[in-house]
């Protein structure tokens, strides 16, 4: 447990905490954006597989290059992208579908990663990668996250149209000359990079929370893709930061608090969203009918 005097002090005077706060906000913004694409493309669980598949890459990098962050991130990137490639090949060359290939590979990768890390590192290191430690991040870690977040925002702004078209209707995107496979691979690459960026902060186990919870929350409120992206990014950034500050004041694990803070808004939205929440579905609303212009106006001349 942390020193009670430290916990009670103003968090904004501590440089390491400011660094962690900046990282939480940046991760929340990027996670919120990537999460929207994952949710709408229905590949959330594939992203979960990715996060577990990073572990053997970290293990091998630890063995070969030591505990330096650059090596570990490179190892994670190779493992994540390798898993994506392997799953694609298994899907095309065997009877297995892509989700089954991902599912099979990720448990293998997780087991391999645990074995590798348990042989080489102290148990605390293993827990560090499983659950993260955002308060221990360095300036270099922050720059990595900053670069990843900026890249994600810029890439999504530039490729907004292909992402929208391919996510809404991949067949039409293809007919129109769009590069559906390239778009899919770019999305997977963005997932891997953002997972790696989140590894240090929240760890492999909770990383998906930064992606899916802001996106699911925004999805319950928004009727347009652009609005969903915006709300998800803002909500992700704010609540990740709030969760970190909460963890500081309550002396609780930071990664878990960030995910819990993101989850609190999700639960409220699940109940209270007027159009898509539980209460909205259970209670009769006049708004819906007022908005409707008839069951079918196909007879319009």
């Amino acid at each position, binding site marked *: 447990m942390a020193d009670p005097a430290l916990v009670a002090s103003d968090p904004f005077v501590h440089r390491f905490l400011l660094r962690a706060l900046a990282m939480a906000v940046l991760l929340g913004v990027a996670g919120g954006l990537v999460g929207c694409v994952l949710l709408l493309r229905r590949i959330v669980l594939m992203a979960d597989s990715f996060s577990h598949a990073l572990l053997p890459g970290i293990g091998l990098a630890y063995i070969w290059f030591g505990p330096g962050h650059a090596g570990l991130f490179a190892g994670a990137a190779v493992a994540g992208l390798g898993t994506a490639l392997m799953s694609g090949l298994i899907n095309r060359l065997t009877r297995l579908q892509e989700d089954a290939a991902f599912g099979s590979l990720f448990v293998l990768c997780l087991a391999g990663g645990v074995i590798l890390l348990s042989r080489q590192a102290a148990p605390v290191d293993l827990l560090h990668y499983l659950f993260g430690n955002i308060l221990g991040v360095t300036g270099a870690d922050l720059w990595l996250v900053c670069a990843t977040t900026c890249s994600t925002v810029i890439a999504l702004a530039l490729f907004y149209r292909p992402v929208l078209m391919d996510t809404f209707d991949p*067949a039409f995107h293809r007919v*129109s000359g769009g590069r559906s496979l390239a778009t899919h691979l770019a999305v997977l690459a963005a997932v891997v990079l953002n997972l790696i960026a989140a590894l240090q902060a929240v760890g492999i186990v909770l990383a998906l929370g930064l992606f899916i919870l802001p996106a699911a929350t925004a999805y319950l409120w928004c009727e347009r893709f652009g609005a969903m992206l915006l709300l998800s990014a803002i909500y992700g950034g704010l609540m990740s930061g709030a969760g970190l500050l909460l963890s500081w004041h309550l002396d609780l694990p930071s990664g878990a608090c960030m995910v819990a803070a993101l989850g609190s808004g999700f639960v409220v939205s699940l109940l209270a969203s007027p159009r898509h929440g539980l209460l909205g579905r259970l209670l009769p609303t006049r708004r819906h009918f007022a908005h409707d212009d008839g069951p079918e106006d196909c007879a319009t001349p």
Partner: protein
Amino acid sequence: MSADRALVCHDLTVCYRKRPAVHHLDCALPCNGLVGVVGPNGAGKSTLLHAILGWLPLSGGSITWDGHAVETRRGVISWLAQRRTQDAGFPVDARTVVDSGRYAVRGAFAGFRDDDRAAVEAAMAEMHVAQFASRPFAELSGGQQQRVLIARALASGAQVLLLDEPLTGLDAPSADDLLRRLRDWAAGGRLVVAVIHDLAVVRAWCSEVLLLNRSAIACGPTAATMSEANLARCYGPPPEIGHHHG
């Protein structure tokens, strides 16, 4: 627009999973009309459409539109799938769906110009979807969604529209409405090719028909082509050929 344009398949062979699903097909589908593609299950109807779209390689022969190989005319051919390929829960309004037809023309980065907006407005007016332009796509009825998707294809500048069983899931008034709009659109020098199972619908709405069972059994004006003899050759005896689906 020329009235002489046609989608022509010459000695066409297309394989699906290494087996010829369509072989030595010769047909000419003229513009200004709604062409029905008719045949039993496994006759190669969807395979033919996929080959026209360039999704399946040709094992032999050629496909041309307006005298040019279809590979060089990609922008003019659009498609509406048998099963909905759109994500039903995607947060998007009807106008944005139609706008995305122009994205196909403009590419990823170019700004939306006045002529893009005009094309979108014209397509929405033609398919009578302007009145629910701001409504979420997911909340529209099946018939309305079909019309929005066709408006998207029109906005993209398509001259040929391929539809694989477009009437699936539509009630009779919605189906009639859709067919009327397609026929009217095609009358302006364009072509609609639709796989339709209901032979009564084909007789009522299609100007031309292609009877297909791996190769062309017959192709031409609907009344003359859909003779009992041709249908029997297409579906094979016993001629229980009316109103089935699948």
